[in-house]
């Protein structure tokens, strides 16, 4: 089973590994074998491809499979129409590779750089994050209606509903807790929604043959490389997302092409499937998907406009957070208390899953992200080399 496949994303270089054992302490699934002084190796059956070991290795001994060469070939191929999407977390970290402070917003420069790199259309994963909220939020409403006994929603899945954006979490659930799968939202992640829409709707509107469209994604995440290669993501009739590169790889590409990133003028994403909202922006942080879903679910269910749109109770970096949001549901004529929970770090999710399986859980909606802090601290983000200086 431990044969090398293209879906095994994370690898330890035994010639560089010093056996310091730091990686085993950050691995959420105990997938790394080895003790102090030994060369460590990854058990790919357990690995969820999150890359936490990679960004935390003091010796730079761990790397992720790169498809940058394939991407450069596609950009140079006149027969390919190359579109790109960029995840929310990339825009507040990419600047670090060019000497800027963590958290600096380089959204405008990033879109300008992508245009200079020669992409035919420069889009935004945030558009697809908004689409995810529409689909996943509606699915949650249907599950709540089914639970409340409203006729017509019998086909809906059980409560609580778990979020489905994080591919490391999905693989973990599939590997360890198959009985929890009916609780996970059937909505695809924003990356895969974007891919399916690009090669159908966008191809149609742009009058481009979807067979010639090449769909690229920039992600703060190494597990997204695994996700885009999952064989079921062919809803458009083609591979929905052709290739994923990380924030680090985008920075390398910009440097290789000699683009003076710091001095670029701000540009915006292309229209059609490129506009986004603040709700989509916060998808990159733990609690963000929950807050975005609450903003929409509250307004759609109550028919009222939220006075204050921030749900501060779901924010913060505590590994497990919970809140109750009272939503006046117009169609039912009652106020429903919705119990939500946010978990980041897969180590903390087991107890929550076991409560759900045992029928003890009080929650209705649970957000899970593998990486501590959320996607902003994903395995594809810039590595802070000075930490080890």
């Amino acid at each position, binding site marked *: 089973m431990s044969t090398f496949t293209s879906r095994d994303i994370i690898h330890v270089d035994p010639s560089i590994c010093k056996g310091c054992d730091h990686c085993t302490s950050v691995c959420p699934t105990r997938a790394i074998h080895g003790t102090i002084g030994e060369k460590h190796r990854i058990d790919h059956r357990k690995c969820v491809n999150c890359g936490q070991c990679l960004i935390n290795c003091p010796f730079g001994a761990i790397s992720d499979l790169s498809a940058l060469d394939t991407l450069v070939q596609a950009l140079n191929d006149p027969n390919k129409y190359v579109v790109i999407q960029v995840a929310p977390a990339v825009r507040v970290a990419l600047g670090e590779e060019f000497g800027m402070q963590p958290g600096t917003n380089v959204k405008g420069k990033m879109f300008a750089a992508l245009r200079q790199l020669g992409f035919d259309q420069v889009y935004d994963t945030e558009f697809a994050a908004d689409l995810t909220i529409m689909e996943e939020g509606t699915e949650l409403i249907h599950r709540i209606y089914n639970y409340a006994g409203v006729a017509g929603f019998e086909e809906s899945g059980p409560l609580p509903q778990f979020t489905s954006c994080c591919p490391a979490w999905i693989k973990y659930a599939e590997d360890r807790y198959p009985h929890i799968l009916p609780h996970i939202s059937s909505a695809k992640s924003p990356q895969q929604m974007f891919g399916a829409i690009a090669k159908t709707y966008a191809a149609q509107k742009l009058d481009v043959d979807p067979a010639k469209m090449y769909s690229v994604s920039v992600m703060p995440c190494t597990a997204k490389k695994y996700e885009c290669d999952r064989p079921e993501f062919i809803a458009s009739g083609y591979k929905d997302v052709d290739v994923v590169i990380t924030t680090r790889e985008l920075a390398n590409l910009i440097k290789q092409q000699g683009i003076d990133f710091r001095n670029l003028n701000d540009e915006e994403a292309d229209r059609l499937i490129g506009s986004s909202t603040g709700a989509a922006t916060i998808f990159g942080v733990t609690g963000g998907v929950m807050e975005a879903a609450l*903003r929409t679910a509250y307004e759609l269910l109550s028919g009222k406009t939220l006075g204050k749109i921030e749900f501060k109770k779901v924010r913060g970096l505590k590994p497990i957070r919970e809140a109750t949001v009272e939503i006046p549901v117009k169609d039912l004529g009652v106020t429903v208390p919705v119990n939500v929970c946010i978990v980041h770090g897969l180590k903390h999710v087991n107890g929550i899953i076991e409560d759900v399986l045992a029928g003890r859980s009080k929650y209705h909606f649970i957000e899970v992200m593998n990486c501590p802090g959320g996607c902003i601290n994903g395995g594809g983000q810039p590595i802070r080399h000075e930490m080890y200086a």
Partner: protein
Amino acid sequence: MKILKESSVFTRRQFLKGSGVLVISAVFMGIFAKVGFDAVAAQEDVVQKRVAGLYSLDEKMTIRKSHENPEIIQLYKDFLSPGEIKPVSDKAHHLLHTRYGEEVPGLIAELKKHPIEAA
């Protein structure tokens, strides 16, 4: 003396050798623990700055709710559920929803049997 020597577990040489190994490994573990600790603290600081970056970006956006994104509204009205905004329509289900675990092979077979109508 002879009795004492026979009852001792280590010879003097073995004892020195053993303690040397212990001291050296303790020093190494200390160094790695410190590297790990500092790195975690530094990483937390970076995480907090990136989190703050995203929240302040949210505050600067003109539209801050997903259902108000005009291009999302257009996508539903023009394509996913023609003429209306109806999430989880048949087309939305085909393109935007998936299945997990043992249900994946069945989904792949269905997608191949009923491909989305050609644009």
